[in-house]
């Protein structure tokens, strides 16, 4: 493409099919305690894949 460069295709709709295991970190247990910062966390399943 000449006019558009895709940085990430986005996978949010795909996660509806397989997401929701609940093993991820609770947002306020990170560094915040005064805001909600879900978007900067990682999926626990993707972390497991990374470690493998």
């Amino acid at each position, binding site marked *: 493409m000449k006019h558009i460069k895709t940085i990430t295709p986005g996978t949010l*709709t795909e996660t509806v099919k397989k997401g929701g295991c609940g093993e991820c970190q609770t947002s306020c247990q990170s560094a915040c305690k*005064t805001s*909600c910062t879900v978007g900067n966390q990682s999926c626990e399943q993707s972390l497991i894949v990374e470690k493998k």
Partner: protein
Amino acid sequence: MVHLYENNGLKIALDVNSGAIHLVDEMAYKLIPKIEELIKNDELDENQITGPTAEILELYHQKMLFTPDTYEDYINEVKDRETVVKALCLHVAHDCNLACRYCFAEKGEYGGNDNGPKLMSLDVGKRALDFLVTNSGNRHNLEVDFFGGEPLLNWEMIKELVTYGRSLEKEHYKNFRFTLTTNGILLNEEMFSFINQEISNVVLSIDGRKEVNDRMRPLHDGRGSYDLIIEKFIKLAESRNQADYYVRGTFTRENLDFTEDVKHLANLGFKQISIEPMISCESNLPKSNSLTELVNEVPGEGPAANPDFALCPEDVPAICAEYDRLAKYLLTRKEKGQPINFFHFMIDLTGGPCAAKRLSGCGAGSEYLAVTPGGDLYPCHQFVGQPEFLMGNISDGITKTALYDNFKATNVYTKPKCRDCFAKFYCSGGCAANAYKLTGDLNDCDDLACDLQRKRVECAIMLKCDGSS
């Protein structure tokens, strides 16, 4: 919904419902809203289309632009699932050796409404972990944060409680992730090995420059705390190989140039930095929803007035400009081969949270609970000390089930202000405690916090795009 914006010379298109992100040129930037409108009105003729319009339509057909919002039914399915408790904020000390001027915990006293013990006993701590194990269902990873007040005032108990937690893991197939939030006054190098072995993340509270830190974070006798903590924090961060910790500060309207505080910490060698906006405490709307009726069964004293250093709506343009300045500083360091991580600009574009997580919010009051030194349960650490939010205790469990139901039901679709917000899948509806403090309604939002959240998301995405243009 597509959010188009310019930042640091880049034109960025965020397809909100898929999470796709594109860098676009001037022509595409102008065309995207027009084509979205044509598609919405079913007026688009796809024949004889070339150039940027063809590219936009290709992405549309690949579900990377104009993706419809199909999550509203899904969230009901998610919310109908059984909820387990997966995280506890253990207030092991309702006492503090600092007298921070902005502290929401009111120097560890939490409004003076907690008449229980100041320090959590080992027995209460053990029963809290038992409560967590019992109520966590099949969830394997359990999170326990040692919080306060200042948790190191109860250090020996923390050590024993961690040992107890480890003893439960094998039998119950659980993995405890212990975290610690400390002001560092009592920290000593003898604690380092235990902390580094057992504590998966440490939050070290410091506001940045000495004068900024000492103005807001004095000891009870008025002396500044910076000189008492800084060398210990540097050593602890190094001993953790500059990972699994944050130096965390708060900015107020007295240091809206908080990039200088980030620079100060970075120049000392810290690589994991978080500087967050002070939360306000002033309620500006009458409390008038059903939750209010519920919680007003026990009258509280009402919120305190905001101090003069609290952030105000008129500060938003200056703070947003400062976030831009900070983002450029991070880029400069990265280009020099000296990157640092700023917590609020972190974003995982490929392995981020699933839709269920992003829609559900922070989990306060259902998945996440705070435990006082006496064993009382509150929806989260920020509600502690407000009698109307006392949910139960670790012996009897959650007894105020209507309050639990209210928290569990909260999600981005129960919050009218989130519906048309491009950042809703990054903040998940924002902080419930802030919303309630400011508006009296869990399903409303703290508008100032939302403005800042949107700006941070824009900066975070820009940082991922930079270098790709």
